């Protein structure tokens, strides 16, 4: 598979990550081997993607201060600040 050279940069819990333009936040994190996306609000259990298509809402993260954003759907924009 050929890939374009440019990439976009974002942070996840303060750490820097890169994404190919068009990739979702979850995809970019998976690419960098970051599978754990959040901890559940009641039991604090780790979660990652589950359905991958925006149905299950397990992959939610906070994007630029907005909570409950589905990381499997949202395309990375340069400078995005993503948190668990």
């Amino acid at each position: 598979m050929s890939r374009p050279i440019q990439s976009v940069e974002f942070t996840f819990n303060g750490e820097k990550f890169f994404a190919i333009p068009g990739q979702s936040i979850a995809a970019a994190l998976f690419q960098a081997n970051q599978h754990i996306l959040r901890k559940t609000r009641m039991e604090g259990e780790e979660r990652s993607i589950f359905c991958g298509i925006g149905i299950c809402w397990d992959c939610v993260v906070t994007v630029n201060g907005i909570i409950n954003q589905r990381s499997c759907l949202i395309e990375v924009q340069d400078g995005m600040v993503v948190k668990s």
Partner: protein
Amino acid sequence: MIAIIGAGPAGLAAAATAAQRGESVILIDSASQLGGQYWRHLPSNWSDDRSLHYNFDKAQKYFDLILNYPNITRYSNAHVWQAEKIDDKFHLYLIKDGIEEKIVAEKVILATGAYDRSLPFPGWTYPGVMTPGAAQGMLKSHGVLVGKKIVIAGTGPFLLPVAAGLAECGAEIVGLFEANSPLRWTLNLHGLLLNPGKILEAIYYFKKLRKFGIRIQYGKVVEEATRTSVIVDGKVISCDVVAVGWGFVPDLSLAGILGAKLKVDRDGTVLVRVDSNQETSIPGLFAAGESTGIGGSTLALIEGEIAAGAKKTFARWRAQVFAQGLQRVYPVSAKWQNNIQGQTIICRCEEVTQEEIRASIDELGAENGRTAKLFTRAGMGLCQGRVCSRNVSEIVASHTRRKVADSELIAGAGRPMAGPISLGELGDGLGKKF
């Protein structure tokens, strides 16, 4: 004006057919790319490689048609959250780029597709456990392999292309487990005879699997997942991803909101009722694709065309025979409950366990799924029951020694909103009217 919601095979076929007939079409989809789930692909500015797809030419043909017809307006990245029928028109409320807009159309075709059906099992909430759709979506749309050593399990023909695609991109498929016996294909011979193309498709995938040395093991299920392995038939298999799926479930939120009559299929799947023209019980509201019966892209394309006015009765019939036959080949037994424990989470969003659901029955007197859900919050989280609703109903039914009533299944498929809207977007009101 015709509004088509969903740009997967059914929606694309409907849009192309309608546009060909000179109609004004608005094609609405929540994704940025055309294709829905079936025809997920890498962005074109990235790669034109479509080798992961079986017969992608058809998809490309539709993409080109959509982009070239001047009477099709594309509305991508648009989430429909509400809808109403007022007099003879449909008012569709959607969010695009943080602004709420309304589209008014005389005819609406719902082509919102389906999602993987999931059954709980011990450890299914650990990172690394996902649906086959998730593994495939990551690969096809984003070029990312979800793991290096992957177990694929569940039931259904969908497991094959997922395994093949992941193997093609370098994953080691350390186990491919189909719960049902292949001998069950004798129950769909007439389906195969009417649709010989399916045999070619099967051969294509079996060849791929053989190329990568992947052997399908039949009659086995994943009993439990740990953080680093799964247990199948008592044996521990080391892996970093396990993709489990049990067929598909259509998303009927919009159909329910608009008041279309729903029905329960033989296998318990809730569907929209349509007539031979793909029209629902609401005049002017049509449905095509998975929501009228799970049948893959072949059936979806035909239904999309019919919904837009084409006559393809025989083609639809023979595709339906195959699709209904698949239910006999790949049934999902209610016995999945034998595999779960008290501590197994049933509602992932609200972290509700089987124990808590049973307690709501034993201690609090819940007698049906709806009450159990109100007491435990199962189904009340972000996904609004899309993943757990049927499973909760089945647990309550077996614990109270009853069958799940059709009315309960139908109620579980409905919800007051079809998609997310923020309180700010809602309060700000309509930004644009079409």
